[in-house]
């Protein structure tokens, strides 16, 4: 059982017509996951209770469209009674006693959590290589990274393990792995989805989103998980539209801006060519495309790493070995318990960011770094807003290259950070953004990035759907998997 030729629509029909049961579907899904795990390492935990959960759905009867459908959940999203580690040693024994709001919403809709997907430790990274549980592999080429931080979710969807998976995106953590794996991935507007029960990295940037092969399936899942939550005062009270029901691939009259700075000389020309072709498709379909400028893009990485690390250093203070998580042994006092638990429990990348953030928030550096970055953020937000006042969408590449080799950049943090330059803008401004499969270069997928105005996820879904119906990228089977058959 794999999900290459499936949609939620098709699966729902089979379940509703009792052609298959949720139990059998879940069993087959788990079997398929276990068969591939040795090569992909997409999961931190495969959920043993999933078959039991599916049985209960069968007993209750198939109701909504997600009822009985297996999904995967990134391992920084709390799942009651299922280990949640954020791919960190410091949470390697953490068993949540409550569900994240997004988990609860999926469960209420009858979806089955089949497993917790691998990520860079605390979502800090662009390759899953910083995971305490080892790197995940790209389904198109096992020697390449799947991207990150939601690399496990991306590999799981691309390899046909599941129809959809939840990810989180702080600086590109859904879109970059979606691009590297040839799937669709959307980071919604800041505040569209509750962050309650999502392990915090950078609270002004974090957002939960969805990854799937088909646009319509992400639209379905986002409609289910979005909405206001009393537990998260930053979640919006704006009504959630039915993104799937509203899908409309008519591109006539849609105005697309392409920022010239996205066509940077540092970006692989073949990637740019693929993106250009996708943009040509939009012109052919009736959209108008115009070049714009985002002069402050060159400072985006600087702004992002100062702000994200500052917020992370604050958020990660809670890990001290006292109330939950890893506790260091043989300590002689409480201070040593804190220091040793943290020093043994966190990996190098997390330590680096905590230290960077502690530095940028410290008395002597606060104005020059943290406040300054927050001011430049304002300038950049205004540039993006000015463009989106006139255009429906901003389009460009997601990444500067296709998936890079495992081990290629892990020793050079700065090179790793520069990867994020094209995805960071949406997080800094809280805008919705997605990666849509556009083609391949030398056998590796390339995504087109689409950004829209706040709370206009529909514009992204529509344009993504239009491109999908033209290029039918979802019909392609990842190369590495194909070679095994």
């Amino acid at each position, binding site marked *: 059982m794999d999900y290459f030729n499936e949609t939620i629509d098709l699966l729902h029909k089979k379940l509703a017509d009792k052609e298959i049961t949720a139990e059998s579907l879940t069993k087959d899904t788990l079997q398929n996951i276990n068969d591939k795990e040795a090569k992909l390492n997409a999961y931190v935990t495969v959920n043993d209770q999933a078959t039991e959960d599916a049985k209960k759905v069968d007993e209750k009867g198939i109701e909504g469209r997600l009822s009985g459908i297996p999904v995967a959940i990134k391992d920084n999203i709390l799942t009651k009674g299922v280990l949640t580690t954020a791919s960190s040693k410091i949470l390697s024994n953490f068993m949540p006693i409550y569900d994240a709001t997004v988990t609860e919403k999926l469960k209420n809709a009858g979806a089955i959590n089949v497993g917790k997907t691998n990520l860079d430790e605390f979502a800090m990274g662009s390759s899953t290589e910083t995971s305490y549980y080892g790197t995940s592999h790209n389904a198109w080429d096992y020697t390449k990274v799947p991207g990150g931080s939601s690399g496990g979710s991306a590999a799981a969807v691309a390899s046909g393990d599941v129809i959809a998976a939840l990810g989180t995106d702080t600086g590109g953590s859904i879109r970059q792995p979606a691009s590297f794996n040839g799937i669709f991935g959307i980071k919604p507007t800041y505040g569209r989805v509750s962050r309650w029960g999502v392990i915090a990295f950078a609270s*002004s940037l974090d957002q939960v989103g969805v990854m799937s092969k088909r646009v319509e399936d992400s639209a379905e899942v986002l409609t289910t998980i979005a909405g206001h939550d009393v537990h998260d005062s930053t979640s919006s009270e704006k009504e959630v539209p039915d993104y799937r029901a509203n899908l409309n691939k008519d591109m006539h009259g849609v105005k697309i801006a392409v920022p010239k700075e996205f066509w940077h000389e540092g970006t692989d020309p073949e990637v740019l060519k693929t993106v250009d072709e996708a943009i040509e498709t939009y012109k052919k379909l009736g959209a108008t495309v115009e070049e714009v400028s985002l002069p402050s893009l060159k400072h985006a990485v600087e702004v992002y790493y100062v702000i994200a690390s500052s917020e992370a250093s604050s958020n990660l203070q809670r890990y001290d070995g006292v109330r939950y998580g890893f506790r260091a042994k043989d300590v002689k006092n409480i201070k040593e318990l804190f220091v040793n638990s943290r020093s043994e429990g966190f990996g190098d990348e997390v330590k680096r960011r905590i230290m960077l953030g*502690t530095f940028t928030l410290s008395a002597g550096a606060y104005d020059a770094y943290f406040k300054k970055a927050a001011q430049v953020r304002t300038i950049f937000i205004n540039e993006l807003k000015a463009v989106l006042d006139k255009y429906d969408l901003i389009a460009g590449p997601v990444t500067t290259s296709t998936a890079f080799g495992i081990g290629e950049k892990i020793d050079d943090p700065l090179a790793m950070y520069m990867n994020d330059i094209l995805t960071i803008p949406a997080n800094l401004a809280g805008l919705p953004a997605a990666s849509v499969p556009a083609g391949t270069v030398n056998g590796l997928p390339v995504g087109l990035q689409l950004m829209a105005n706040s709370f206009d996820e529909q514009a992204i879904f529509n344009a993504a759907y239009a491109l999908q119906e033209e290029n039918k990228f979802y019909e392609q089977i990842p190369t590495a998997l194909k070679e095994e058959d």
Partner: protein
Amino acid sequence: MISKEEVLHVAELANLKLKDNEVDGFVSQLDDIVTMASQLSTVDTEGVEPTYHMSDTTTVFRADEGKHTQTREELLENVPEVQDNLIKVPSIVDKEDGE
């Protein structure tokens, strides 16, 4: 831009202890990153309001009423060491070699 002393000081503030053979690596990596971040100083931000958060600035109110969420037992489930239904930690005041 950032010295070894600063890195060690920052690590201490962050409750982290670096191994001797790790220190130089962290110093040079953090120096690279801080040098990159220093390019922010070239941007004119005179009179620009900083963006510290993304939410609406309105205060959210809720009724002040008690609600039962988790039980004591549940809240203690993840605690590494429990004694008499309490969280156990090493001594707070160091008796032997207190400073």
